[in-house]
């Protein structure tokens, strides 16, 4: 199992000026911010890019203002959400059809993305090669053949490896559930 730092530990390292920490921070949350922009608010790619960069610019500048390091994910979600709404309102001045999505719909997407981030975190804990195989198959939509060629694994064994890896992630998630439940 890979050793995974908590969000709070990572934020603390960023604040201490650890040069690698910011890279890891962006790596850890880039998919989340991107998904909020593109899936939650369905921003056009160029708008999503602007919001994405603005979110990380503000996060970098204001990380020291974060009250609780553990709350970095909801803080980023809120920041991204606000900037997406600002962008949609700005666009609506020129193109009135750029309506804001329904708030409850956005809440539902954000809730699913939170679950997805927890699964992602469990996958990070499981580590490679499962992380790479599942990421390529589910997140990058690569075929068995492509994954097999890239990782030097017979394509015919990819399906069973995916199944075993999913089982490891499920076990990791179950372990977290048990650990967080009061005895």
């Amino acid at each position, binding site marked *: 199992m890979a050793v995974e730092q908590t969000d709070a530990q990572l934020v603390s390292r960023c604040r201490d000026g650890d040069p690698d920490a910011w890279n890891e921070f962006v790596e850890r949350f880039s998919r989340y911010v991107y998904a909020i922009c593109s899936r939650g608010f369905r921003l056009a790619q160029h708008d999503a890019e602007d919001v994405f960069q603005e979110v*990380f610019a503000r996060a970098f500048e204001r990380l020291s203002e974060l009250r609780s390091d553990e709350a970095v994910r909801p803080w980023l979600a809120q920041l991204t959400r606000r900037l997406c709404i600002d962008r949609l309102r700005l666009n609506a001045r020129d193109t009135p059809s750029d309506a804001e999505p329904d708030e409850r719909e956005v809440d539902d997407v954000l809730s699913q993305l939170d679950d997805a981030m927890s*699964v992602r975190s469990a996958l990070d804990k499981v580590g490679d090669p499962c992380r790479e195989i599942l990421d390529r198959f589910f997140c990058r939509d690569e075929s068995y053949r492509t994954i097999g060629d890239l990782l030097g694994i017979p394509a015919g064994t990819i399906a069973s490896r995916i199944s075993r890896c999913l089982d490891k992630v499920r076990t990791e998630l179950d372990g977290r*559930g048990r650990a967080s439940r009061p005895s």
Partner: protein
Amino acid sequence: MREMNGFDEEQIGRLLRLLPPAPEGWVRAAQELPAARAMLDEIVARAEQDAAFRLQLQADLERAVAAAGYEPSPFIVSRLRQLLEAV
């Protein structure tokens, strides 16, 4: 964190699909923010002290940034535009 146990393998796969990687260039640009920030501070400090440079920036921001030896990425240019309004 919400309690996550109870997800079956199909749900785990479905949730993983919700988080495709952000475009590489976006991630790289965000990772370069600390360096970009230092560059911005330098440019703004120079603009505050050097009136000729400030005029060049006002006339053609991208060209002046490039002429001063900095990479005028879209992020640098847009951020600089905001910062220079305050100079």
